[in-house]
């Protein structure tokens, strides 16, 4: 019996060590990334249809967490195929040259119950900027739900070239909203 018990213990320890190293599994159907922009003061929220998120989060050791998100820029959907094609063009996302936008965390710090402060590098259209934003975490049906908003300045990423640099039509500030549902 003793060798069997030892083996069992080793398996459990091994499995849990493995579990800590493997990031949470993202439930894409219950996750979303969208951007809210303002044109002539009209707020419009539109989703990115294709993205992947990888979150490595242990509630017991939040500071050891890691997160990365990759978004397919051409999947931005403002509800009309013609408009979507426009937004993928050079003046906006330039999806042909920069198909992906990404975020990679550099540090995640606990900031009270269910709250984290996330810092990291946001890369869009070939430009990288350091960003910091608050993130909330809550458990929902055995899964972890991460939610947050990240305000950015679109011109810092050269999104909207030429006449679109004029922010009186489309505001410089854009809020990226996300909700990622993930389970171990």
């Amino acid at each position, binding site marked *: 019996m003793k060798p069997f018990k030892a083996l069992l213990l080793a398996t459990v320890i091994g499995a849990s060590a493995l579990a800590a190293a493997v990031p949470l599994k993202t439930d894409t159907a219950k996750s979303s990334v969208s951007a809210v922009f303002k*044109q*002539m*003061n*009209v*707020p*419009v*929220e*539109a989703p990115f249809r294709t993205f992947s998120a990888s979150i490595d989060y242990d509630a017991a050791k939040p500071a050891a967490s890691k997160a990365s998100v990759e978004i397919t820029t051409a999947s931005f959907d*403002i*509800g*009309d195929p*013609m*408009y979507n094609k*426009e*937004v993928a063009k050079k003046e906006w996302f330039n999806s042909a040259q920069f198909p992906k936008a990404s975020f990679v965390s550099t540090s995640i710090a606990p900031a009270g119950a269910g709250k984290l402060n996330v810092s990291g590098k946001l890369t869009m259209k070939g430009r990288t900027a350091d960003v910091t934003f608050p993130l909330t975490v809550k458990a929902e049906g055995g899964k972890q739900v991460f939610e947050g908003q990240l305000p950015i300045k679109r011109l810092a990423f050269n999104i909207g070239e030429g*006449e*679109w640099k*004029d922010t009186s*039509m*489309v505001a410089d500030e854009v809020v990226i909203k996300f909700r990622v549902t993930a389970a171990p």
Partner: protein
Amino acid sequence: MRRYTLPAIVLHWLIAIGIIGTFTLGLVMTDIQGITMAKLRYTNWHKWAGVTVLALAALRLLWRLFNHPPQYADQMPAWQRGAAHGLHILLYVLMFAVPLSGYFFSLAAGFPVVYFGEIPLPVLMGPDPELRALLRGVHYWLNMLLAGLVALHVLAAFKHLLVDRDGVMQRMLPIPTPKENP
């Protein structure tokens, strides 16, 4: 012949200008391909103008409910009175249906209306791709119907002015003609 009341005349002509301007802007903006500054600007102006017409139409309907319009010319046959009355009812319905279909089309497309870029108007529903496609067609065809009925309305008015010479059109002209009001 008695004329329409001053508020009725003012509202009629403001709405006439509003409908022609908004309709024209609608044709121009939908003709622009892609997304341009001009297209965004015209589209917002079109929405503000449409909301303005809707508000004026509401005022006008209220006024109409409490103020009877002046009599038709005595020699007007019954079928013409019936046709004129029917056309006026349809025009009233469309003065509401056209801007409302546009408003909900905009909401279904996920674009709320911010009046003059300052006053956010009620977001009565969220984005809905299916309704958006439906309302786009509804808004377009209601407009075509309105354009046809306005043309008929104008032709009939000029028939009264030039053929019948019965003073019916003068009841609504902005300035009373000396002959009518000596």
